[in-house]
């Protein structure tokens, strides 16, 4: 039973990168099986987890070990055989560490996929080779595009049920490309797989010699993610002001935050918003010593040459490259509240480290995400709807378009009565 595992090179971790991806698929397209396959073939399933799901599968009289049980975390999910919420999975190969945001395919679909997609570098969209591109596939592609996931891999699954034939695969590729031409997906690849049998997931398929591209795992391990962050437009939302007030650091004032875009270097001239005061970066501090430059997504502490008033919610930027400062702007919103959006209603708004209140002034259009048609004159924005709206905020927001920067182009809306997060917004 014990497998021989290669000796782990404990120095290798210094070069490992992190890739976050989300999986999208409709019911019964083999999403759980694919995740189970990735975990199993990369030896990330432990013996006690395997024994536990073997026992449950046997008790339920199932023929195969049900790998889907690995991803069903809550009692209600196991009882009903459904997935309720976004679940996060982890595995690693010698090259990369992976975080999977596993989102359910049925209820609350849009809300969950948007949540999983918001932090992802890559989306895997599963298509059943027998059914081809269906309405749900289009929805997945639209959300991947809306959320600006940098890389998309369309896995054409169940190729074994199509006798591993090239035609089924090519049809999916063509149909998907026709549809996605209308979208803003930058990098899309196609892989024919059988998650059940393992073809082209981790190990290369011998059943599809006509396919010359890489396996899914090869893409996961090698896709270039170094350019996924914006390294041009320097943005530093101030999260917290560090004031030690000790003898050693008596006058120290540091601005703690996570770089949201661009590169900051010691000595550079910067401006602080909203005051507009300028200064120079005196130091970029960390507990292990000062650093010369900071880039996304580093968490650092900046100190400035001049004693100017800076607090949480302010943004440090370069003098010659500033975000727009606006109180009225358009947002593509995915509605996540149980109660429909109130046009004219007031909501709390969070954008970077800045808190504001806002009023929904107008619904420009609602999106039919199956046909990509814009529906005008429909102000009823309910759970899982996507719409373009205009908001007006109580204070200026320092914003970039979402396409330019996911960090400074995103916001959430909060219901002030329940405190629930009810809207995910992408600034147009």
């Amino acid at each position, binding site marked *: 039973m014990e497998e021989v595992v290669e000796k782990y090179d404990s120095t290798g971790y210094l070069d490992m990168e992190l890739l976050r991806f989300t999986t999208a698929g409709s019911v019964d397209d083999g999403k759980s099986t694919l995740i189970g396959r990735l975990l199993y073939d990369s030896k990330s399933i432990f013996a006690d987890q395997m024994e536990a799901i073997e026992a449950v599968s046997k008790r339920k009289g199932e023929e195969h070990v049900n790998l889907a049980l690995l991803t069903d975390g809550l009692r209600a999910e196991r009882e009903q055989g459904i997935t309720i919420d976004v679940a996060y999975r982890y595995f690693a190969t010698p090259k990369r560490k992976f975080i999977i945001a596993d989102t359910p395919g049925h209820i609350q679909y849009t809300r969950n996929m948007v949540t999983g997609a918001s932090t992802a570098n890559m989306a895997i969209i599963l298509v059943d080779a027998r059914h081809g591109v269906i309405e749900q596939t289009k929805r997945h592609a639209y959300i991947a595009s809306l959320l600006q996931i940098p890389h998309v891999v369309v896995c054409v699954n169940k190729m074994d049920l199509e006798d591993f034939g090239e035609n089924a695969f090519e049809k999916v590729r063509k149909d998907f490309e026709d549809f996605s031409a209308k979208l803003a997906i930058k990098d899309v690849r196609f892989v024919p797989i059988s998650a059940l049998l393992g073809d082209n997931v981790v190990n290369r398929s011998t059943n599809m010699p006509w396919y010359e591209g890489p396996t899914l795992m090869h893409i996961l391990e090698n896709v270039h993610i170094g350019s996924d962050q914006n390294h041009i437009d320097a943005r530093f939302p101030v999260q917290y002001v560090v*004031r030690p007030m*000790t003898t050693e650091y008596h006058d120290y004032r*540091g601005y703690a935050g996570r770089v949201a875009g661009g*590169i900051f270097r010691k000595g550079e001239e910067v401006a602080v918003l909203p005051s507009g005061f300028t200064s120079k970066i005196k130091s970029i501090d960390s507990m292990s010593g000062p650093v010369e430059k900071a880039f996304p997504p580093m968490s650092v502490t900046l100190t400035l040459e001049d004693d100017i008033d800076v607090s949480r919610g302010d943004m440090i930027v370069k003098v010659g490259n500033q975000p727009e400062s606006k109180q009225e702007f358009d947002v593509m919103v995915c509605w996540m509240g149980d109660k429909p959006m109130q046009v004219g209603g007031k909501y709390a708004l969070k954008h970077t480290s800045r808190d504001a209140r806002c009023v929904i002034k107008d619904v420009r259009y609602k999106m039919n995400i199956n046909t990509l048609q814009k529906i005008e004159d429909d102000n009823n924005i309910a759970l899982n709807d996507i719409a373009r709206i205009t908001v007006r905020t109580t204070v200026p927001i320092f914003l970039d378009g979402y396409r330019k920067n996911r960090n400074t182009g995103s916001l959430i809306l909060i219901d002030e009565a329940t405190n629930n997060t009810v809207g995910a917004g992408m600034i147009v």
Partner: protein
Amino acid sequence: MESSYKLTHLRELESESMFVLREVAAQFENPVLLFSGGKDSIVVAHLARKAFWPAKIPFPLMHIDTGHNFPETIEFRDKFMDKIGARLIVASVQDSIDQGKIVEEKGFNASRNALQITPLLDAIEEHKFDCALGGARRDEEKARAKERFFSHRDDFGQWDPKNQRPELWNLFNGKKNMGEHFRVFPISNWTEMDIWQYILLEEIEIPNLYFSHMRECFERDGVILGKTDFIETRDTEEVKPMQVRFRTIGDATCTGAVLSEASTLEDIIDEVASTRVTERGGRSDDKRSEAAMEDRKKQGYF
């Protein structure tokens, strides 16, 4: 160490955790960091030091003390607090038992693990903490895989897994009503392997229980337990010296040891890489039922 504009996975995780810790300091009035003396809470405390340096951690640390500790844990805890200059609060399970709020479990498998819920919730109420930071990770257990970074608790301290707030980008919503609080998990995205690699990378001190040593142990239901005063052994259970180490450090009555010769961090990383059992596989508290963790979490467990 890092190539020009890329972070290694450990530095990216570190940065994410520091971001979460700073959000807590900014969004809550009175947070507390739950500290067990185990490696995960040591890493969270280390990250908190980094997040606020050169200032001290701007909130206290709290130990929910089952009274059933390995002596090494307490010794380590006190030295650690001295070193980082943090304020420590101890909430004791024994006190709650003495006050008649909870009843000690009886029998051979008696454990104080689930009994930690009452002193934890009482301490949160007494000190008016509005946020309790913990070192739980999503890879630990299946109910934890669905946990948020910012996890809302109602005024009874309960978790409602089916009604969680969506968490988007890195915009964390810590808004709440009076009496409610949050549990926040800065190392949600770390795995056991990441923790060990990071401890090695950052040269973080940890209790010597994690390294191989000789200890009087016995086996029960496939789990190796250390012999202590708090646990009764059956006549059939043979207590003998074994060369072991602990993968997790919790209540001494239910934390299993593993046979191991790993005496350095590098050895431990090699061992974790080749092991085929999850770290909670050695915790008999999780073996009580398929949803043992979920049930405890709903009631207000860590």
